[in-house]
């Protein structure tokens, strides 16, 4: 992935790419599936499905311990996936890539290790108003345990962070800033480079929740200079149950371990245990081997298409969908940030999101309805829920037409 990818990639061939996703050819309630719930989870290409299947049918075994061939093959595939993750986000070392269950576990890991060791009573942690619950609750729990204080960056009516308010929140008390790269409920792309630089001026470390970002934009943790970056495989066309915590090596080395168990130790006696080196120190127990190897295949797949090409295409989809949505009488977009990823969150005058979700499902269209695990966002906009269509690179303008028609049909039921 580099900035020339968009130029060197021939015209984005969405029809060909769709062939890689077997699920996209199924029907739902007798209609062709229109899958627009990609922010919840993405679909998986054959390349990923077959990689996982190959692991189980050809070299399934435990890693890092056996001397036999299968274990060597599995270990090498597992560690190769770590290197793929390293280069995917441009980390400086594969020691900085910790495999976890997903973004949620990654954030909990930081809260429970770095947080407990470094954040004390009276210290302040800053999150934003648009965070997913998984980037709020672990910090709240930490605050309850150690007496730290949670501060919240407010957002404006467009769903953008109010950076002046962020600047005012920062002080010598600020020890950690935890912000999402892209909001799952609003689609807003946050200015994380600026957020990180400002936090560093106050010696605070920064945790970026990248769950929504990695499928849509290329990440360079070194140029961002972020301290921690978390993402999930399943939103990136890989399997569920696996994700990555990136952390700067010096921070990870100084942190206490997360869970105790096998693989994270060098030597155990009843008097003392010596912990293993990075990254194994944070990977106790048999990990999700198939998941990690599958994530590696997903990264290969996405990298071959190129994230810049993906971002360009998805931006086109978003503009097309936004324009079409605005022609629908009674529809109000929630989240109109200037810098936005391919997420269209909205409410309607006379149709509740859940009824819309059910009616669209009847047309084979999958969208998400509800609070999107971001209840403070719903409170901010004084709504109980939104309907959310979220696009991936395999979606088409035709599918957006089907969505718009479905919304018009739903209106007819209630108006």
């Amino acid at each position, binding site marked *: 992935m580099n900035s020339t990818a968009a130029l060197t990639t021939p015209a984005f061939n969405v029809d060909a790419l769709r062939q890689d996703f077997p699920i996209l050819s199924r029907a739902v309630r007798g209609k062709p599936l229109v899958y627009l719930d990609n922010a919840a989870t993405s679909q998986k290409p054959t390349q990923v499905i077959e990689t996982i299947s190959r692991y189980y049918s050809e070299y399934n075994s435990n890693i890092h311990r056996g001397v036999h061939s299968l274990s060597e093959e599995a270990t090498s595939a597992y560690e190769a996936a770590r290197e793929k993750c390293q280069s995917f986000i441009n980390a400086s070392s594969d020691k900085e890539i910790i495999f976890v269950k997903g973004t949620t576990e990654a954030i909990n890991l930081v809260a429970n290790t770095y947080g407990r060791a470094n954040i004390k009573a009276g210290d302040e942690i800053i999150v934003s108003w648009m965070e997913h619950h998984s980037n709020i609750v672990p910090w709240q729990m930490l605050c309850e345990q150690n007496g730290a204080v949670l501060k919240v960056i407010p957002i404006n009516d467009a769903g953008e962070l109010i950076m002046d308010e962020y600047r005012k929140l920062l002080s010598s008390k600020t020890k950690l800033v935890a912000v999402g790269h892209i909001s799952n409920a609003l689609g807003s792309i946050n200015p994380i480079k600026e957020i990180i630089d400002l936090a560093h001026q106050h010696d605070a470390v920064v945790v970026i929740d990248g769950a929504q970002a990695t499928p849509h934009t290329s990440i360079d943790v070194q140029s961002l200079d972020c301290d921690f970056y978390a993402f999930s495989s399943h939103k990136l066309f890989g399997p569920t149950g696996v994700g990555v915590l990136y952390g700067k090596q010096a921070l990870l080395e100084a942190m206490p371990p997360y869970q105790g168990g096998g693989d994270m130790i060098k030597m155990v006696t009843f008097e003392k245990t010596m912990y293993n080196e990075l990254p194994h120190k944070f990977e106790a127990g048999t990990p999700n081997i198939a998941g990690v190897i599958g994530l590696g295949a997903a990264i290969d797949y996405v990298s071959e298409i190129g994230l810049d090409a993906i971002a360009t295409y998805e931006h086109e989809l978003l503009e097309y969908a936004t324009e079409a949505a605005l022609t629908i009488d009674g529809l109000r977009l929630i989240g109109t940030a200037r810098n936005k990823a391919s997420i269209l969150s909205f409410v309607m005058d006379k149709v509740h*999101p*859940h*009824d819309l979700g*059910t009616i669209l499902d009847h047309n084979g269209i999958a969208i998400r309805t509800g609070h999107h695990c971001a209840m403070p966002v*719903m409170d901010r906009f004084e709504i109980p829920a939104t309907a959310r269509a979220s696009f991936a690179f395999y979606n088409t303008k035709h599918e957006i037409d089907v969505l718009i028609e479905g919304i018009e049909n739903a209106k007819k039921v*209630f108006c």
Partner: protein
Amino acid sequence: MFDLKDLYQEVIVDHNRSPRNFGKMESPDRTLEGFNPLCGDRLTLYLKMEGEQIDDISFDGSGCAISVASASMMTDAMKGKTAKEAEEIFNNFHELVTTDGSNVDSDKLGKLAALAGVREYPTRVKCATLCWHTLHSALEGEQTAISTE
């Protein structure tokens, strides 16, 4: 094949558009809030009791068409019923929306039977039953808000 109109029947659309017994009650005997954290549906039930009998009942709150229509129809059906009768109807209603309905005593349900289509959408069952769970708890004397989760 199941038709969408079986779920959003005219009577349901009508109860959603103009819910009956909607609004806060002056000096109720019992008030209880019900909340569905999955979708944000929230309603408050107000009850006036005459001994064991529901003398008056109303609700307010916000939710999807299924939850509003269900609360509207439930409150209509509950006026004058005893707590025991209410329980019986609730059991029948629950059976109606969660099973194939073969054990349902439809005489007891009346208009409420219009919500049978919900059974085709398991994720929507809680929308239809939120008001009933809230009523059940209110009749049992529960005072803290109830949640479907």
